[in-house]
């Protein structure tokens, strides 16, 4: 098929015409969903803020359902499609396989997303994105999600196909680049995820049509979380790949050890997807043995993988900076990092938030007995806003600051605002996560419209501190919405009004990645062993916080009623 290849003059990366269009459209669609999700976030936060309580109950539950779907599924998935095409076609410098199928996937996702949103906004499908049976939504609510899943599966297949094309056309030599390898793990997990999703959503759709009489409520939760949890592993694999990508582009950083980083990605495939158990720890239908085995054996290997990446990503940056001569003390490498570049600051805040806030809280939440202290409380959304928002979303936002000039060929507008955006969003989101977890620790429920329980036959007064935490949730939530809105403004503004940049040389043949020159291998072997003491200190800090917080929660648990 006739296509062209453009070599970007800024980055030296090569963009195939079809792949480039696909990435642009997927990224833009993702941003539009983020916009819808952001508006719903504002409405959610203004309703949960006890002093404001903006929406009536029915609208709140409707909007919260939309928030979950539009953010977690649509924004993230569209952007991930762009990441997959980037990691295959751009990094391997080859044409994209079967672009027609990729477009079909894209449009299925668009149509599916719209159908589900129509169902939600019609008002008869306020079932939350988890749609636990036997609560029933309109059939098109499920149908839309199924279409999105099919579209995403097609995109994932195109990614696999593109890897084959690159191999066949010999556009690279040796093994896949680490970032592509990470994306490959994400795609493999995605395939598993989408199949579990089909396994549960198709029967649920049939049930909503009246073709199936009943779906067991516990079984639904188990299979649904095979979808719901594994999709978070896709996100982790994707944003870790983006961290490595950022480190490579900005610092020329090479992984401390290819072997270790790849092994850690492999652990995600082997173990992460079975961690769906940790959503069922306080359920009746599973035995304690099953829970402990699945939440630990399977999960802790995945946790180990994340701890490894949490070490090797900053380690690679530190080593690269030290090679450049920032060798003073423990932390000169970090102090002298480009904190004014939003691509870096966003990535680093994402890394730190994901490790310190999201990672630690997730493991504690996923401990069989401790889960009882937090299950379905506000702690849960607090936790995952520090993973999928501070971690994944922020990583995607920061890499977009790179993609605007390179992929969209536009200069960023308002560079000063671009500089502060990651701080504004990252820090407010981190604090938001913390105060939400604080409220949850005091018992406040998630997905709950009214802390005053008006209409109930009894009264219950939440402790004053819970109201304080919810007030802070409101304040930092609004700041986070401003930070997120600012990003959308900057990106969309740059796409529309940014100065057009030169696209670079266009050719009708791909230029393969040059094979390793003598010099390159010399670098690889020569001054390779740069010690990374700063990263060691950071890692130990993480470890100590982890251990302390973990045992504090066992202490809390030991103080509640006795249960057996």
């Amino acid at each position: 098929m006739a296509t062209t290849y453009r070599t970007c003059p800024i980055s030296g990366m090569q963009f195939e015409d079809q792949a480039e269009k696909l990435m642009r459209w997927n990224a833009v669609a993702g941003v539009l969903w983020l916009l819808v999700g952001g508006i719903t976030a504002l409405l959610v936060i203004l309703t949960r803020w006890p002093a404001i309580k903006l929406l009536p109950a029915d609208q709140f539950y409707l909007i919260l359902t939309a928030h979950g779907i539009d953010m977690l599924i649509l924004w993230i998935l569209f952007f991930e499609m762009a990441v997959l095409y980037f990691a295959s076609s751009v990094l391997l410098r080859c044409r994209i396989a079967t672009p027609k199928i990729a477009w079909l996937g894209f449009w299925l996702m668009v149509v599916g997303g719209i159908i589900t949103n129509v169902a939600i906004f019609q008002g008869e499908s306020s079932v939350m994105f988890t749609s636990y049976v036997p609560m029933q939504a309109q059939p098109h609510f499920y149908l839309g999600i199924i279409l999105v899943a099919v579209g995403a599966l097609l995109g994932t297949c195109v990614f696999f196909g593109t890897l084959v094309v690159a191999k066949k056309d010999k556009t690279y030599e040796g093994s896949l680049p680490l970032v592509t390898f990470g994306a490959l793990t994400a795609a493999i997990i995605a395939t598993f995820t989408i199949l579990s999703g089909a396994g549960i959503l198709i029967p649920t759709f049939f049930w909503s049509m009246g073709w199936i009489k009943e779906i067991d409520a516990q079984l639904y939760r188990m299979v649904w979380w095979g979808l719901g949890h594994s999709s978070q592993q896709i996100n982790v694999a994707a944003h870790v790949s983006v961290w490595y990508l950022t480190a490579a582009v900005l610092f020329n950083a090479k992984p401390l050890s290819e072997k270790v980083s790849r092994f850690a990605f492999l652990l995600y495939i082997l173990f992460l997807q079975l961690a769906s158990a940790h959503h069922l720890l306080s359920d009746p239908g599973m035995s304690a043995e099953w829970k402990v085995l699945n939440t630990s054996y399977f999960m802790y290997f995945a946790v180990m993988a994340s701890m490894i990446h949490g070490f090797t990503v900053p380690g690679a940056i530190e080593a690269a900076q030290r090679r450049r001569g920032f060798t003073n003390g423990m932390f000169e490498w970090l102090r002298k990092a480009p904190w004014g570049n939003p691509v870096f600051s966003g990535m680093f805040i994402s890394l730190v938030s994901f490790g310190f806030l999201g990672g630690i809280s997730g493991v504690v939440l996923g401990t069989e007995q401790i889960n009882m202290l937090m299950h379905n409380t506000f702690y849960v959304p607090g936790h995952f806003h520090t993973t999928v928002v501070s971690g994944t979303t922020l990583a995607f936002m920061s890499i977009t600051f790179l993609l605007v000039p390179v992929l969209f060929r536009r200069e960023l507008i308002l560079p000063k605002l671009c500089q502060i955006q990651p701080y504004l969003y990252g820090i407010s989101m981190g604090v938001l996560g913390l105060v939400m977890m604080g409220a949850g620790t005091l018992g406040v429920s998630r997905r709950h419209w009214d802390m005053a329980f008006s209409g109930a036959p009894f009264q219950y007064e939440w402790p004053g501190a819970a109201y304080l935490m919810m007030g802070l949730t409101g304040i930092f939530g609004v700041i986070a919405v401003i930070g997120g809105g600012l990003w959308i403004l900057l990106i969309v503004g740059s796409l529309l009004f940014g100065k057009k940049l030169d696209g670079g040389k266009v050719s009708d043949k791909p230029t393969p990645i040059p094979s390793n020159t003598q010099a390159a291998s010399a670098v690889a072997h020569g001054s390779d062993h740069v010690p990374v003491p700063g990263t060691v200190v950071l890692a130990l800090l993480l470890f100590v916080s982890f251990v302390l917080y973990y045992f504090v929660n066992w202490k809390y648990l030991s103080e509640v009623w006795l249960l057996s």
Partner: protein
Amino acid sequence: MSAILPPSDRLWWKQPIDKVEWAWIAIAFVWGMIMFGMMIYWHIYGKQNLSNEAYKTTPELFAAKAEKFIAENTIRTETDQDIPVVRVPPGGDGYLIARLWAWYPILELEEGQTYKIHLSSMDYNHGFSLQPVNINIQVIPGYEHVVKMTPTKKGTYAIVCNEFCGIGHSWMLGRIYVK
């Protein structure tokens, strides 16, 4: 730019792993094992473990058992809805129904006594969230969960529903007395 290029050393899997990296991997591994061990330890020595006892049931079956329990043990009614307050025999079985949008009935327990509380839902998923103790258990229709509980302090406790169950979710509030 190695993370976005094929590894410069084609035999990357033969490169030795740095000592510091090994140490960190070892720490992560051992810590995982400790956390695994902690859960087992707590099952043996800890005093807060979620019960494993659960049966498949139906709303009708469970409601019938609960009604029998209520008829035999009610000591008074409360509120203008005349919700029965039911004294659970110490060491005995108590039933708590979750339904749209109430916890039924009110249970009365004694401090330091152990009870087998049977939980099930008549319709959707609900969330048993005991406040201010903050114990949270999923309640699923079709499953009867038998949870052994020993209250450790006298007082009036609230059961908040913390699994979304429709428009009345926010007023689905129950009560437990501990004497």
